C-alpha cells in the first residue's frame, strides 16, 4: 500500500507544470506584426523593433503584450498611408499596447473592443477619426500617450467602466479627451491644450449603455482649447463649439477639482443636459447631469471670446464672461468658493460642503483584474462589424461604401462569397472609393462578420 501511494504522488508531481512559459516574439523592421500576433499564444509578448509597418494589427487573443521597442529615441511606426482604416484593434482581455507611434489611419488608430484589463501606455498617435478608442471594456489604464490631429476625440473612452486616463497629452484634436457613457473614470494629470474643446464627460442616446457617472476630472492642465472645428460635417463632433475647457454633458456625479483651466475662450466649465442640446432622443437615458461638484480649480482668463450659443447666453445673463455655464436643470450640484467665480445658470446649485474633495480616490481601476470569459466568436464578429465596417457602411444608406441593405441583397445566402470579397475586394463601381483588404482578420472572424451582416442585422 505504501509503495502505491508513493507512485501516485510522483505521477501527480510530474503532471504539474513547475512554471508557465510565455514566449517573446520579435518583429524586425520589414516583417509583419500581424504575422507575429497570429503565431502568438495567450500570454506572449510581441516586441516590435523600430521601423515602419504598413498594416492593420488585430489581436483577439488573451493577455497579449504588444510592445514597441524604443531604441535611441526611435519607435516602431504603424503607418496607414492615408489608405488603411485602422491601426491596432484589440478584442482580447488583458491586452497591453505600448511604445508605438501610429499615423495615417482613416478610422481608429488604437482601438479596443470588449477587452477588459487593458493597458494603453506611452504611444504617440497622429490623425485619424478616433485616436485611442477603448470601448465596451472594464478596468483599463490609458496613460502617458500623446495624441494629435484627431477628427473626433484624441482619447475617446466609450461605454467603459473603471478606467484611469492619466498623464496624457492631447493637442490639435477636436476634443482632447472624452469619456462617453462610461462609469467610474479618473482623468488626472493630463495636459490638454489647443484642441477645439478640452475635456468632455458625456452621455449620448441610442447606445447600449444608458448612463454616465462618477467621472473625476482632477489635476489637469486645460489650456487654450480654442482652435477651429475641423471635424467632418457629417460627424456629431462637428457640432462641438470651440473654447470650452471642461464639458459635462449629461454625466452624473462628475467632479472637477484642482485643475488649472486657462485661456479657453468660451468658458472654463460648461455643464449641460441632453435636452438643451437636442440629444435626448432615448427616454431610458436620464438627460440631466445631477450631482456635479465643481471644487477648487484655478481659472485664468477664460470666456473672453465666447462663441454661439454661449455668447448670447452670457449676454442675456448680463455678464461679459463666465467661468462656469450651466443649463440650470442639474439637481444636487454644488460649487466651492462661489463668490470667486462668475456663474450662469447655477441658481439652484449649492455651495459644496466644507471638506468636499476627491483626495481619497487613488484610482478608478479595480483592485483585482476583472474576471470575464473571452469573447465568443459571435461577439467578436459583431464588434468587428461595429469597429471596422461601420466606418464606411451604413445600414440603409450609402456613405463611403454601399449600404448594408444592398450588400445583404447582393450576397443573400452566400456568406462565403462575402468573406471572399472582404478579404480581397475588387473595385466594381466607379462611384465608390477602393475598399482596403480586411485580410488581417482571421477566417473565423470574417465568417462571423458575414453571418452577422447577412443573417442578423436589421438596423
Amino acid at each position, binding site marked *: 500500500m505504501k509503495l502505491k501511494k508513493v507512485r501516485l504522488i510522483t505521477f501527480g508531481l510530474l503532471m504539474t507544470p513547475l512554471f508557465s512559459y510565455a514566449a517573446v516574439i520579435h518583429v524586425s523592421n520589414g516583417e509583419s506584426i500581424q504575422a507575429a500576433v497570429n503565431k502568438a499564444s495567450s500570454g506572449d509578448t510581441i516586441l516590435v523593433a523600430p521601423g515602419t509597418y504598413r498594416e492593420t494589427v488585430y489581436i483577439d487573443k488573451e493577455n497579449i503584450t504588444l510592445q514597441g521597442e524604443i531604441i535611441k529615441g526611435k519607435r516602431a511606426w504603424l503607418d496607414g498611408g492615408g489608405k488603411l482604416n485602422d491601426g491596432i484593434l484589440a478584442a482580447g482581455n488583458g491586452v497591453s499596447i505600448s511604445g508605438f507611434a501610429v499615423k495615417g489611419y482613416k478610422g481608429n488608430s488604437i482601438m479596443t473592443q470588449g477587452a477588459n484589463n487593458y493597458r494603453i501606455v506611452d504611444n504617440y498617435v497622429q490623425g485619424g477619426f478616433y485616436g485611442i478608442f477603448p470601448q465596451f471594456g472594464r478596468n483599463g489604464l490609458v496613460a502617458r500617450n500623446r495624441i494629435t490631429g484627431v477628427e473626433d476625440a484624441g482619447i475617446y473612452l466609450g461605454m467603459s467602466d473603471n478606467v484611469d486616463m492619466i498623464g496624457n497629452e492631447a493637442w490639435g484634436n477636436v476634443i482632447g479627451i472624452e469619456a462617453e457613457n462610461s462609469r467610474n473614470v479618473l482623468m488626472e494629470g493630463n495636459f490638454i491644450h489647443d484642441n477645439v474643446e478640452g475635456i468632455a464627460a458625456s452621455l449620448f442616446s441610442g447606445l447600449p449603455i444608458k448612463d454616465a457617472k462618477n467621472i473625476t476630472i482632477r489635476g489637469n492642465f486645460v489650456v487654450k482649447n480654442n482652435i477651429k472645428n475641423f471635424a467632418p460635417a*457629417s460627424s456629431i463632433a462637428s457640432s462641438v463649439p470651440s473654447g470650452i475647457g471642461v464639458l459635462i454633458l449629461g454625466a452624473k456625479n462628475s467632479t472637477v477639482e484642482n485643475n488649472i483651466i486657462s485661456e479657453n475662450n468660451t468658458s472654463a466649465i460648461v455643464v449641460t443636459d441632453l435636452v438643451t442640446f437636442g440629444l435626448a432622443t432615448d*427616454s431610458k437615458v436620464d438627460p440631466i447631469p445631477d450631482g456635479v461638484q465643481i471644487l477648487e480649480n484655478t481659472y485664468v482668463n477664460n470666456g473672453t471670446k465666447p462663441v454661439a450659443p454661449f455668447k448670447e447666453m452670457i449676454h442675456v445673463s448680463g455678464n461679459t464672461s463666465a467661468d462656469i455655464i450651466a443649463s440650470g436643470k442639474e439637481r444636487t450640484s454644488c460649487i466651492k468658493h462661489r463668490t470667486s467665480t462668475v456663474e450662469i445658470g447655477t441658481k439652484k446649485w449649492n455651495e459644496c460642503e466644507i471638506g468636499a474633495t476627491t483626495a481619497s480616490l487613488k484610482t478608478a481601476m479595480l483592485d483585482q483584474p476583472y474576471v470575464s470569459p473571452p469573447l465568443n466568436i459571435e461577439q467578436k464578429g459583431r464588434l468587428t462589424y461595429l469597429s471596422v465596417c461601420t466606418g464606411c457602411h451604413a*445600414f440603409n444608406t450609402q456613405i463611403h461604401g454601399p449600404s448594408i441593405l444592398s450588400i445583404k441583397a447582393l450576397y443573400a445566402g452566400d456568406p462565403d462569397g462575402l468573406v471572399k470579397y472582404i478579404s480581397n475586394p475588387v473595385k466594381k463601381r466607379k462611384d465608390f472609393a477602393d475598399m482596403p483588404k480586411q485580410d488581417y482578420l482571421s477566417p473565423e472572424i470574417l465568417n462571423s462578420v458575414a453571418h452577422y451582416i447577412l443573417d442578423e442585422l436589421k438596423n
Partner: protein
Amino acid sequence: MKNTDSLLSGSSAKYFSLIFAALFLVSPELVLASVPDLMPKDCPLAKAPAQLMAAYMQFSEHKYSPVDLTCAAQLSFKAAEAKPGDIETNVAALAAQMELLDLLSSILDEHLYQEGEAYQDIKQRWKFATANGKKLSSRLSKMSATDPIVGTLLVAYQLSATAKLVDPQVTLQTAHDASKTLQEIVNRPNTEPNDLALLILGRLSLSLPEVYGGDVDNAVTYLKQAYSINSQNISTLRWCADALISANQNDASKQFLNEMLSLQPQVGEAQQFADELKAAYGLAARIGDTALSEKLRANRTTLLKQYPNLRTRQSVAGFGHGGPDPMTGKDTD
C-alpha cells in the same frame, strides 16, 4: 375652425430640439425646381384646386413616410396658393409643412452621424418645406396673427423649421421668442383654453436653459394645465410624465404613463402613438417600474404589428457607434 382644431390636435407630436448644425440657406427657386424628384409617382399634383385638399388628406395620414408627407405638403401648398384668402386651407397647408419637418427631424435623430444620400435627401426636403412654410407663415401672419390658434401654429411652425439644420443660436433664440409669445397667448383674457399652446410651452420650459427662462417646475405646471383641458392627447400625457420625472416626482408620473395605456390612435395618429409609447416605456424603465414599462412596450408592439409601415426608431450604427448591442446582438431600446 373645426377642421383646423382637429388638424392641430392630430399634429401635436412635435419634436422640438435645440441642436448644433451648419447654417443652410433656403433658396426657394432652386428647391422648387427639384420638387418632382421628391414626390411619389402617384402624387396627384395635377388635380384641380377643388380636389387638392382631399388628395392631401389621403397622403397626410402616412406620418411615417417622408415621401408621402412631401406630397401632402405640396398638395396642400398648391391648394393654399389657389385660395390665398382662405384661413383654414392655409392653416392646413402650414401644418402639413410642419409635419414633414417634424418627421425629418425625427429621422435625423435616429442617426448619430449624418452622411450619405439619405441625409442629402432629408436636406432637400427640408429646404422644400421651409420654402413653402415661409410663404404660408407670412400670409397667415397678415391674415390672422391675433387668432390664438393661428398664433400657436405660427409659433409651432417656427420651432419646427429651426429645430435642425440651422445655426444653434437661431434655434435657441427662436425657442426663447416662442416661449414669450406662447405665454402671451395663454394669458390673454377671454380666450378659449389652448392645450396645444400649453403643451408646447411646457416642453420649452423643459428644454430651455435657465438663463432663457427654462424651469422644470413651470414645465410641470404648464403641462398639467394642458392635461386639464385635454386628457386624451397622448403627447400631453407623455410630456407630463417626462416633466414630473425631471422634477423628481416619479410616483406622480405613473398616473400619466398608465393613462397612455387606455388611448387608441385615430386615423393618421399611429406613428405618433408608436413614438410616444416608446418614450413612455423608456421613462417607466428609468423610474424602475418594470411592469408598467412592459405594458407600454406591449401596446407599442401591437401597434407596430397592426401598422407594419411605421418607423420603429431603432438606433442605426455609424463610425463605431450605435445600432444593436454588439455584446448581445439585441437592439438597445
